[in-house]
């Protein structure tokens, strides 16, 4: 039974597109860790099928995600080596899967779910984006419009929301940026709108939309809040307790 709170992620960087995607997904790694989730981050040369299978076997992660080139049937890692392909994805049984990759939503995603994958989010067409500079996509004035919707999925899942919630939040973010760029008069704005629409319409969710990878934030806030209140009250509780103890010490012991 895959373990909630454990994540395996692949971040190849062997060409221009995966290099930038890998940087962007670094934010997802940091965010998930800040939420107390254990992340096995298979970056660069570790983004291979062997490493992924070892990671899933060791940690039994509830969530498998990554960036990589893909086609209808295959998701790849470093140097475009296949990681999972159609009819060869049994290791994803019981897990939530999100692949930032072209086309894997067309056949591989349905196959993952049909073989017991909990839920799958991906893209049934090419995942395309526009970037001005070779920098972290989330700091690029154009590319952030493409990567914020992607990050929304990771962030929501890490916060304990369901796959369906994460998917819808991502679509809302795509729509926000489509609307934003439609209103700009920059000569490249129409190109951006075109690719944003394309990616949004290609994004798919299959399987159990109520699946989660982490405990909902509300449930983790309650014990945290009790602890915080107790700590805040300590300067009051301790003197009262001490005073009570002193009173008890003064009073004659019952016979």
């Amino acid at each position, binding site marked *: 039974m895959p373990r909630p709170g454990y994540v395996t992620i692949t971040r190849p960087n062997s060409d221009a597109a995966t290099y930038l995607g890998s940087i962007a997904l670094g934010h997802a790694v940091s965010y998930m860790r800040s939420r107390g989730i254990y992340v096995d981050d298979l970056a660069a040369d570790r983004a291979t099928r062997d490493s992924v299978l070892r990671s899933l076997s060791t940690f039994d992660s509830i969530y498998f995600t990554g960036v990589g*080139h893909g086609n209808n049937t295959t998701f790849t890692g470093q140097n475009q080596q296949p990681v999972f392909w159609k009819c060869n994805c049994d290791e994803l049984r019981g897990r939530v899967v999100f692949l930032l990759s*072209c086309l894997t939503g067309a056949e591989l995603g349905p196959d993952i779910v049909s073989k017991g994958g909990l839920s799958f989010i991906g893209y049934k067409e090419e995942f395309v984006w526009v970037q001005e500079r070779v920098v972290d996509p989330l700091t690029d004035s154009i590319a952030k419009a493409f990567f914020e919707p992607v990050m929304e999925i990771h962030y929501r899942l890490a916060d304990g929301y369901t796959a369906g919630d994460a998917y819808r939040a991502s679509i809302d973010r795509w729509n926000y940026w489509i609307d934003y760029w439609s209103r700009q008069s920059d000569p490249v704005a129409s190109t951006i709108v075109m690719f944003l629409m394309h990616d949004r319409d290609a994004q798919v969710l299959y399987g159990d939309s109520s699946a989660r990878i982490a405990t909902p934030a509300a449930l983790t806030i309650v014990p945290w809040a009790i602890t915080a209140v107790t700590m805040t009250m300590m300067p009051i509780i301790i003197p009262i307790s001490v005073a009570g103890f002193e009173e008890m010490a003064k009073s004659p012991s019952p016979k």
Partner: protein
Amino acid sequence: MSLSEKISRLRRFLSENPALAGIPIMVVGGRVISLREAVDMLERGVMTQEIIAKLQSLGLDDEEEMWALVERFWESVAAARPDIKIYALGGYIPVMSPAEALEHIRARDEVGKSLVKMYSSLLSYIKMRMNA
């Protein structure tokens, strides 16, 4: 809807969506024109019937016309913003410039076909927004 109402609606759409005003949207009289030009022509009463008909079938253009629109679109992107790059997580091409995109369109290869499909979706989106 009367012609003047239609023109006023189109004008409002143009002012709310400046990004989409200048893109090639149809071929009329053998010439590629933008939405802004189409509205100007409607106001002047030039080729009214043809433009109205084309607006109603936006995104469903004849294949040859669609190639012409896409080529014109990428010519303008390549001229205005040669600095940007287009990235993809598909197997065939991880990165290309607007000029390279234009070459794929002229070659009518798989990348070119993919760009035509995306452009057709953009035109359908414009039609939907104009009618919203």
